[in-house]
Protein backbone atom coordinates (compact mmCIF):
# COMPACT_ATOMS: atom_id res chain seq x y z
CA UNK A 1 0.00 0.00 0.00
CA UNK A 2 1.18 3.50 -0.75
CA UNK A 3 0.74 5.76 2.25
CA UNK A 4 2.51 9.11 2.17
CA UNK A 5 0.78 10.43 5.26
CA UNK A 6 3.02 11.16 8.23
CA UNK A 7 1.76 11.88 11.71
CA UNK A 8 3.29 15.26 12.50
CA UNK A 9 4.85 18.33 10.91
CA UNK A 10 8.01 17.58 12.93
CA UNK A 11 8.28 14.13 11.34
CA UNK A 12 7.54 15.62 7.91
CA UNK A 13 10.56 17.98 7.99
CA UNK A 14 12.91 15.89 10.15
CA UNK A 15 15.50 15.10 7.43
CA UNK A 16 15.94 18.54 5.84
CA UNK A 17 19.69 19.22 5.76
CA UNK A 18 21.76 22.33 6.36
CA UNK A 19 22.44 24.06 3.04
CA UNK A 20 19.26 22.72 1.41
CA UNK A 21 17.32 24.61 -1.25
CA UNK A 22 13.75 24.87 0.00
CA UNK A 23 10.86 26.04 -2.15
CA UNK A 24 8.00 27.40 -0.04
CA UNK A 25 4.58 27.82 -1.62
CA UNK A 26 2.50 30.93 -1.17
CA UNK A 27 1.94 34.42 -2.49
CA UNK A 28 1.85 36.67 0.53
CA UNK A 29 -0.11 34.73 3.12
CA UNK A 30 -2.26 32.88 0.60
CA UNK A 31 -0.91 29.33 0.51
CA UNK A 32 1.87 29.89 3.02
CA UNK A 33 2.50 26.60 4.91
CA UNK A 34 3.10 28.32 8.23
CA UNK A 35 3.01 25.14 10.38
CA UNK A 36 5.60 23.37 8.20
CA UNK A 37 7.83 26.45 8.30
CA UNK A 38 7.57 26.61 12.09
CA UNK A 39 8.45 22.91 12.26
CA UNK A 40 11.50 23.64 10.11
CA UNK A 41 12.54 26.40 12.54
CA UNK A 42 12.24 23.90 15.42
CA UNK A 43 14.18 21.29 13.43
CA UNK A 44 17.13 23.66 13.12
CA UNK A 45 18.36 23.33 9.51
CA UNK A 46 20.32 26.40 8.52
CA UNK A 47 22.21 28.04 5.64
CA UNK A 48 19.10 27.47 3.52
CA UNK A 49 18.35 28.85 0.07
CA UNK A 50 14.65 29.66 0.10
CA UNK A 51 12.52 30.19 -3.00
CA UNK A 52 9.29 32.14 -2.40
CA UNK A 53 7.65 35.08 -4.14
CA UNK A 54 8.00 37.28 -1.04
CA UNK A 55 9.86 37.39 2.27
CA UNK A 56 7.01 37.07 4.75
CA UNK A 57 5.46 39.55 7.12
CA UNK A 58 5.67 40.17 10.85
CA UNK A 59 7.57 37.50 12.77
CA UNK A 60 5.69 34.32 11.85
CA UNK A 61 6.06 31.80 9.03
CA UNK A 62 8.68 32.68 6.42
CA UNK A 63 9.63 35.93 8.19
CA UNK A 64 10.29 33.93 11.38
CA UNK A 65 12.56 31.51 9.48
CA UNK A 66 14.50 34.47 8.08
CA UNK A 67 14.59 36.16 11.51
CA UNK A 68 16.02 32.98 13.05
CA UNK A 69 18.99 33.48 10.73
CA UNK A 70 18.43 30.22 8.83
CA UNK A 71 18.23 31.70 5.34
CA UNK A 72 21.45 32.58 3.54
CA UNK A 73 19.82 33.33 0.18
CA UNK A 74 16.29 34.33 -0.83
CA UNK A 75 15.19 33.79 -4.42
CA UNK A 76 12.12 35.93 -4.96
CA UNK A 77 10.38 38.57 -7.04
CA UNK A 78 9.03 40.97 -4.42
CA UNK A 79 10.87 41.07 -1.10
CA UNK A 80 9.07 44.23 0.05
CA UNK A 81 5.72 44.67 1.72
CA UNK A 82 4.11 46.83 4.36
CA UNK A 83 4.77 44.40 7.21
CA UNK A 84 8.03 42.94 5.93
CA UNK A 85 10.53 44.14 8.52
CA UNK A 86 12.78 41.14 9.06
CA UNK A 87 14.22 40.59 5.58
CA UNK A 88 15.31 44.22 4.95
CA UNK A 89 17.36 44.17 8.15
CA UNK A 90 19.16 40.90 7.38
CA UNK A 91 19.62 41.87 3.73
CA UNK A 92 21.23 45.19 4.66
CA UNK A 93 23.47 43.52 7.24
CA UNK A 94 24.64 41.09 4.56
CA UNK A 95 23.36 37.98 6.38
CA UNK A 96 20.78 37.09 3.72
CA UNK A 97 21.54 37.49 0.01
CA UNK A 98 18.86 38.17 -2.60
CA UNK A 99 18.43 36.76 -6.08
CA UNK A 100 15.74 38.95 -7.61
CA UNK A 101 13.75 37.25 -10.39
CA UNK A 102 10.71 38.62 -12.25
CA UNK A 103 7.61 36.84 -10.99
CA UNK A 104 6.68 35.12 -14.24
CA UNK A 105 10.27 34.10 -14.90
CA UNK A 106 10.44 32.67 -11.38
CA UNK A 107 7.27 30.64 -11.97
CA UNK A 108 8.46 29.34 -15.33
CA UNK A 109 11.94 28.52 -14.01
CA UNK A 110 10.32 26.35 -11.33
CA UNK A 111 7.96 24.75 -13.85
CA UNK A 112 10.86 24.06 -16.20
CA UNK A 113 12.96 22.61 -13.39
CA UNK A 114 10.17 20.21 -12.54
CA UNK A 115 9.57 19.33 -16.18
CA UNK A 116 13.17 18.36 -16.95
CA UNK A 117 13.96 21.48 -18.97
CA UNK A 118 17.36 22.93 -17.95
CA UNK A 119 16.89 26.37 -19.53
CA UNK A 120 14.56 28.36 -21.77
CA UNK A 121 14.29 31.71 -23.54
CA UNK A 122 11.98 34.47 -22.29
CA UNK A 123 11.29 38.03 -23.48
CA UNK A 124 10.81 39.24 -19.90
CA UNK A 125 13.50 41.65 -18.59
CA UNK A 126 15.25 42.22 -21.94
CA UNK A 127 16.87 45.68 -21.81
CA UNK A 128 16.52 45.95 -18.02
CA UNK A 129 19.13 45.66 -15.24
CA UNK A 130 17.90 42.11 -14.56
CA UNK A 131 18.82 41.17 -18.14
CA UNK A 132 22.37 42.51 -17.99
CA UNK A 133 25.05 39.93 -18.61
CA UNK A 134 22.48 37.27 -19.49
CA UNK A 135 22.93 35.22 -22.68
CA UNK A 136 20.61 36.48 -25.42
CA UNK A 137 19.22 35.19 -28.67
CA UNK A 138 17.00 36.69 -31.32
CA UNK A 139 14.01 34.74 -32.63
CA UNK A 140 11.71 36.27 -35.28
CA UNK A 141 13.26 39.73 -34.76
CA UNK A 142 12.69 39.77 -31.02
CA UNK A 143 15.34 39.42 -28.30
CA UNK A 144 15.07 36.80 -25.56
CA UNK A 145 17.07 35.94 -22.45
CA UNK A 146 18.29 32.45 -21.63
CA UNK A 147 17.32 31.55 -18.06
CA UNK A 148 17.86 28.35 -16.10
CA UNK A 149 15.25 25.98 -14.75
CA UNK A 150 15.13 25.82 -10.97
CA UNK A 151 14.97 22.72 -8.80
CA UNK A 152 15.06 22.20 -5.03
CA UNK A 153 15.81 19.63 -2.39
CA UNK A 154 12.51 20.21 -0.63
CA UNK A 155 9.17 21.92 -1.29
CA UNK A 156 6.83 22.93 1.55
CA UNK A 157 3.26 23.23 0.30
CA UNK A 158 -0.14 24.03 1.78
CA UNK A 159 -3.23 22.37 0.34
CA UNK A 160 -6.90 22.40 1.23
CA UNK A 161 -7.25 18.64 0.96
CA UNK A 162 -4.97 15.73 0.09
CA UNK A 163 -5.12 11.94 0.15
CA UNK A 164 -2.58 9.25 1.08
CA UNK A 165 -1.36 9.06 -2.55
CA UNK A 166 -0.42 12.73 -2.37
CA UNK A 167 -3.14 14.11 -4.66
CA UNK A 168 -3.76 17.73 -3.68
CA UNK A 169 -6.41 20.40 -4.19
CA UNK A 170 -5.93 24.00 -3.10
CA UNK A 171 -7.99 26.90 -1.78
CA UNK A 172 -8.70 29.73 -4.24
CA UNK A 173 -5.63 31.96 -4.89
CA UNK A 174 -3.60 29.94 -2.38
CA UNK A 175 -2.67 27.68 -5.31
CA UNK A 176 -0.14 30.14 -6.84
CA UNK A 177 3.38 28.60 -6.97
CA UNK A 178 2.61 25.36 -5.12
CA UNK A 179 1.79 23.00 -8.02
CA UNK A 180 5.01 24.12 -9.77
CA UNK A 181 7.16 23.72 -6.66
CA UNK A 182 5.69 20.28 -6.02
CA UNK A 183 7.10 19.23 -9.41
CA UNK A 184 10.51 20.83 -8.93
CA UNK A 185 11.58 19.40 -5.55
CA UNK A 186 13.17 16.04 -4.77
CA UNK A 187 11.01 15.83 -1.62
CA UNK A 188 7.64 17.58 -1.64
CA UNK A 189 5.89 17.89 1.71
CA UNK A 190 2.23 18.92 1.81
CA UNK A 191 0.28 20.14 4.83
CA UNK A 192 -3.43 19.80 4.16
CA UNK A 193 -6.37 21.02 6.21
CA UNK A 194 -7.89 17.60 5.65
CA UNK A 195 -6.44 14.27 4.58
CA UNK A 196 -9.32 12.47 2.91
CA UNK A 197 -9.83 8.78 2.03
CA UNK A 198 -8.58 7.58 -1.34
CA UNK A 199 -11.23 8.11 -4.00
CA UNK A 200 -12.82 11.09 -2.35
CA UNK A 201 -10.99 13.66 -4.50
CA UNK A 202 -12.60 13.83 -7.93
CA UNK A 203 -9.86 12.91 -10.46
CA UNK A 204 -11.18 15.73 -12.68
CA UNK A 205 -10.32 18.36 -10.09
CA UNK A 206 -7.02 17.08 -8.67
CA UNK A 207 -4.54 19.92 -9.23
CA UNK A 208 -1.31 18.29 -8.08
CA UNK A 209 -1.20 14.57 -8.90
CA UNK A 210 0.31 12.44 -6.17
CA UNK A 211 3.40 11.48 -8.18
CA UNK A 212 4.82 14.92 -7.34
CA UNK A 213 4.20 14.57 -3.59
CA UNK A 214 6.22 12.55 -1.08
CA UNK A 215 4.76 13.36 2.32
CA UNK A 216 1.34 14.52 3.48
CA UNK A 217 0.54 15.77 6.96
CA UNK A 218 -2.81 16.90 8.31
CA UNK A 219 -2.90 20.43 9.76
CA UNK A 220 -6.62 20.85 10.42
CA UNK A 221 -6.76 24.53 11.43
CA UNK A 222 -3.86 26.32 9.79
CA UNK A 223 -3.01 29.79 11.08
CA UNK A 224 -3.49 32.86 8.92
CA UNK A 225 -0.46 35.09 8.69
CA UNK A 226 -2.26 38.45 8.80
CA UNK A 227 -4.26 37.41 11.87
CA UNK A 228 -1.13 36.18 13.66
CA UNK A 229 0.77 39.35 12.76
CA UNK A 230 -2.14 41.54 13.88
CA UNK A 231 -2.18 39.65 17.20
CA UNK A 232 1.53 40.37 17.64
CA UNK A 233 2.56 36.70 17.51
CA UNK A 234 6.27 36.06 17.17
CA UNK A 235 7.59 32.53 16.47
CA UNK A 236 9.08 30.71 18.27
Amino acid at each position, binding site marked *: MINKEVSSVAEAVADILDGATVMIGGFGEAGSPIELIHALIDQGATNLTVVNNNTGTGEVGLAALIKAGRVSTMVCSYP*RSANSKVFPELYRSGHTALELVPQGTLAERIRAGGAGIPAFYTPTAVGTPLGEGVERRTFDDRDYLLVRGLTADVALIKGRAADRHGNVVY*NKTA*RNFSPLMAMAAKTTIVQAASVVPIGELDPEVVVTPGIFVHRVVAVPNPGHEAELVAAGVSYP
Partner: protein
Amino acid sequence: MAQRCALDIQNGSYVNLGIGIPERVAAYVPQGREVIYHTENGMLGMGPPPEPGTGDPELINAGKQQVTANPGAAYFHHADSFAMIRGGHLDVCVLGALQVSERGDLANWSTGAPDAIPAVGGAMDLVAGVKTVYVITQHTTRDGEPKLVESCTFPLTGLGVVDRIYTDLAVIDVVEAGFQVVELSPGVSFESVQERTGAKLIPGGTDGS
Protein backbone atom coordinates in the same frame (compact mmCIF):
# COMPACT_ATOMS: atom_id res chain seq x y z
CA MET B 1 -7.10 59.63 -15.00
CA ALA B 2 -8.56 56.27 -14.04
CA GLN B 3 -11.94 57.44 -15.29
CA ARG B 4 -10.54 58.51 -18.68
CA CYS B 5 -8.56 55.30 -19.03
CA ALA B 6 -11.69 53.26 -18.31
CA LEU B 7 -13.35 54.64 -21.46
CA ASP B 8 -10.68 52.84 -23.52
CA ILE B 9 -11.33 49.43 -21.92
CA GLN B 10 -13.34 47.62 -24.59
CA ASN B 11 -16.23 45.21 -24.11
CA GLY B 12 -15.03 41.62 -23.85
CA SER B 13 -11.45 42.41 -22.95
CA TYR B 14 -9.19 40.59 -20.50
CA VAL B 15 -7.52 43.20 -18.33
CA ASN B 16 -4.82 43.30 -15.65
CA LEU B 17 -4.85 46.39 -13.41
CA GLY B 18 -1.72 47.32 -11.45
CA ILE B 19 -1.71 48.13 -7.75
CA GLY B 20 -2.81 51.64 -6.73
CA ILE B 21 -4.55 54.12 -9.03
CA PRO B 22 -4.74 51.61 -11.93
CA GLU B 23 -7.00 49.41 -9.75
CA ARG B 24 -9.54 52.22 -9.72
CA VAL B 25 -10.10 51.90 -13.47
CA ALA B 26 -12.51 49.01 -12.85
CA ALA B 27 -14.98 51.28 -11.05
CA TYR B 28 -15.34 53.54 -14.11
CA VAL B 29 -15.71 51.10 -17.01
CA PRO B 30 -18.94 52.18 -18.76
CA GLN B 31 -22.02 50.09 -18.00
CA GLY B 32 -22.88 47.48 -20.57
CA ARG B 33 -19.27 46.42 -21.13
CA GLU B 34 -18.31 43.01 -19.79
CA VAL B 35 -14.64 42.98 -18.78
CA ILE B 36 -12.77 40.07 -17.18
CA TYR B 37 -10.09 41.06 -14.69
CA HIS B 38 -6.93 39.01 -14.31
CA THR B 39 -4.87 39.05 -11.16
CA GLU B 40 -1.43 37.56 -11.72
CA ASN B 41 -1.41 35.64 -8.45
CA GLY B 42 -3.91 33.30 -10.03
CA MET B 43 -7.45 34.29 -10.98
CA LEU B 44 -9.55 35.43 -13.93
CA GLY B 45 -12.87 37.00 -13.04
CA MET B 46 -11.70 38.99 -10.04
CA GLY B 47 -14.48 40.91 -8.35
CA PRO B 48 -14.61 43.82 -5.88
CA PRO B 49 -13.46 43.64 -2.24
CA PRO B 50 -15.69 41.47 -0.02
CA GLU B 51 -18.24 42.83 2.43
CA PRO B 52 -16.57 43.22 5.85
CA GLY B 53 -16.31 39.89 7.63
CA THR B 54 -17.04 37.74 4.56
CA GLY B 55 -13.57 37.61 2.99
CA ASP B 56 -11.12 34.73 2.72
CA PRO B 57 -7.43 35.51 3.45
CA GLU B 58 -6.60 33.10 0.63
CA LEU B 59 -8.68 34.98 -1.95
CA ILE B 60 -6.50 38.00 -2.65
CA ASN B 61 -5.25 40.16 -5.51
CA ALA B 62 -1.69 40.97 -6.56
CA GLY B 63 -1.64 43.77 -3.97
CA LYS B 64 -2.43 41.10 -1.34
CA GLN B 65 -5.83 42.69 -0.58
CA GLN B 66 -8.89 40.50 -0.17
CA VAL B 67 -11.14 40.35 -3.23
CA THR B 68 -14.07 38.26 -4.45
CA ALA B 69 -14.52 35.90 -7.39
CA ASN B 70 -17.20 36.87 -9.91
CA PRO B 71 -19.51 34.19 -11.35
CA GLY B 72 -17.49 32.46 -14.09
CA ALA B 73 -14.17 33.04 -12.37
CA ALA B 74 -11.27 30.58 -12.61
CA TYR B 75 -8.26 29.90 -10.40
CA PHE B 76 -4.91 28.71 -11.77
CA HIS B 77 -1.27 28.35 -10.82
CA HIS B 78 1.47 30.89 -11.54
CA ALA B 79 2.88 29.24 -14.66
CA ASP B 80 -0.56 29.39 -16.29
CA SER B 81 -1.09 32.92 -15.03
CA PHE B 82 2.14 34.15 -16.59
CA ALA B 83 1.53 32.11 -19.74
CA MET B 84 -1.57 34.29 -20.11
CA ILE B 85 0.63 37.35 -19.65
CA ARG B 86 3.80 36.43 -21.55
CA GLY B 87 1.91 34.49 -24.20
CA GLY B 88 -0.01 37.58 -25.32
CA HIS B 89 -3.44 36.40 -24.19
CA LEU B 90 -4.31 39.45 -22.10
CA ASP B 91 -5.64 42.45 -24.01
CA VAL B 92 -4.73 45.32 -21.71
CA CYS B 93 -2.66 46.05 -18.65
CA VAL B 94 -2.68 49.36 -16.78
CA LEU B 95 0.40 50.29 -14.75
CA GLY B 96 1.89 53.21 -12.87
CA ALA B 97 5.20 54.79 -13.84
CA LEU B 98 8.24 56.59 -12.52
CA GLN B 99 9.24 57.58 -16.07
CA VAL B 100 8.18 56.88 -19.65
CA SER B 101 10.47 57.67 -22.58
CA GLU B 102 9.37 58.92 -26.00
CA ARG B 103 10.26 55.49 -27.39
CA GLY B 104 7.84 53.86 -24.94
CA ASP B 105 10.47 52.61 -22.50
CA LEU B 106 9.00 52.24 -19.02
CA ALA B 107 10.70 52.63 -15.64
CA ASN B 108 8.35 51.73 -12.79
CA TRP B 109 10.03 49.28 -10.39
CA SER B 110 13.06 50.95 -8.88
CA THR B 111 14.53 54.38 -8.35
CA GLY B 112 17.96 52.76 -8.26
CA ALA B 113 18.58 54.17 -4.76
CA PRO B 114 21.49 52.20 -3.28
CA ASP B 115 19.75 51.47 0.07
CA ALA B 116 16.44 50.37 -1.47
CA ILE B 117 15.36 46.72 -1.37
CA PRO B 118 14.92 45.83 -5.04
CA ALA B 119 11.49 44.37 -5.83
CA VAL B 120 10.02 43.78 -9.27
CA GLY B 121 7.03 41.43 -8.99
CA GLY B 122 5.28 40.82 -12.31
CA ALA B 123 5.81 44.21 -13.94
CA MET B 124 8.52 43.08 -16.37
CA ASP B 125 6.42 40.10 -17.46
CA LEU B 126 3.31 42.23 -17.97
CA VAL B 127 5.00 44.78 -20.22
CA ALA B 128 6.80 42.05 -22.16
CA GLY B 129 3.64 40.14 -23.00
CA VAL B 130 0.35 42.02 -22.72
CA LYS B 131 -0.97 43.26 -26.09
CA THR B 132 -1.68 46.86 -25.04
CA VAL B 133 0.12 48.61 -22.19
CA TYR B 134 -1.50 51.71 -20.67
CA VAL B 135 0.23 53.89 -18.09
CA ILE B 136 -1.54 56.13 -15.56
CA THR B 137 0.68 58.70 -13.90
CA GLN B 138 0.86 62.28 -12.70
CA HIS B 139 2.47 64.32 -15.47
CA THR B 140 5.31 65.44 -13.21
CA THR B 141 6.88 64.36 -9.92
CA ARG B 142 5.99 66.10 -6.65
CA ASP B 143 8.99 68.34 -7.28
CA GLY B 144 7.70 69.27 -10.73
CA GLU B 145 10.21 67.14 -12.67
CA PRO B 146 8.84 65.70 -15.91
CA LYS B 147 8.01 61.99 -15.88
CA LEU B 148 7.63 61.87 -19.67
CA VAL B 149 11.19 62.14 -20.92
CA GLU B 150 13.45 61.61 -23.94
CA SER B 151 15.27 58.81 -22.18
CA CYS B 152 14.61 57.17 -18.78
CA THR B 153 17.22 57.65 -16.06
CA PHE B 154 15.66 55.13 -13.66
CA PRO B 155 16.20 51.37 -14.17
CA LEU B 156 13.97 50.08 -16.96
CA THR B 157 11.03 47.70 -16.67
CA GLY B 158 10.80 47.19 -20.43
CA LEU B 159 11.96 48.62 -23.75
CA GLY B 160 9.47 50.23 -26.13
CA VAL B 161 6.44 48.76 -24.38
CA VAL B 162 4.07 51.65 -23.53
CA ASP B 163 1.20 52.39 -25.91
CA ARG B 164 -0.73 55.19 -24.19
CA ILE B 165 -0.26 57.44 -21.14
CA TYR B 166 -3.04 59.03 -19.08
CA THR B 167 -1.82 61.95 -16.98
CA ASP B 168 -3.59 64.68 -15.04
CA LEU B 169 -2.91 67.00 -18.01
CA ALA B 170 -3.40 64.91 -21.16
CA VAL B 171 -3.81 61.60 -22.93
CA ILE B 172 -0.68 60.87 -24.93
CA ASP B 173 0.11 58.06 -27.37
CA VAL B 174 3.59 56.72 -27.94
CA VAL B 175 3.94 56.63 -31.73
CA GLU B 176 6.89 56.03 -34.09
CA ALA B 177 7.87 59.73 -33.94
CA GLY B 178 7.49 60.11 -30.14
CA PHE B 179 4.80 61.46 -27.80
CA GLN B 180 1.62 62.41 -29.62
CA VAL B 181 -1.06 64.31 -27.72
CA VAL B 182 -4.45 62.66 -28.16
CA GLU B 183 -6.46 64.80 -25.79
CA LEU B 184 -5.90 67.65 -23.31
CA SER B 185 -7.59 67.81 -19.93
CA PRO B 186 -10.24 70.56 -19.67
CA GLY B 187 -8.66 74.03 -19.45
CA VAL B 188 -5.15 72.77 -20.19
CA SER B 189 -3.20 74.16 -23.17
CA PHE B 190 -0.81 72.23 -25.41
CA GLU B 191 1.95 74.69 -24.49
CA SER B 192 1.54 74.18 -20.75
CA VAL B 193 1.75 70.40 -21.21
CA GLN B 194 4.85 70.83 -23.39
CA GLU B 195 6.47 72.93 -20.64
CA ARG B 196 6.00 70.07 -18.17
CA THR B 197 7.23 67.37 -20.53
CA GLY B 198 10.86 66.34 -20.93
CA ALA B 199 10.54 65.55 -24.63
CA LYS B 200 8.98 67.15 -27.70
CA LEU B 201 5.22 66.65 -27.99
CA ILE B 202 3.54 66.09 -31.33
CA PRO B 203 0.14 67.78 -31.75
CA GLY B 204 -2.52 65.50 -33.12
CA GLY B 205 -5.50 65.54 -30.82
CA THR B 206 -9.01 65.31 -32.13
CA ASP B 207 -9.89 68.21 -29.81
CA GLY B 208 -7.57 70.63 -31.67
CA SER B 209 -4.47 69.94 -29.58
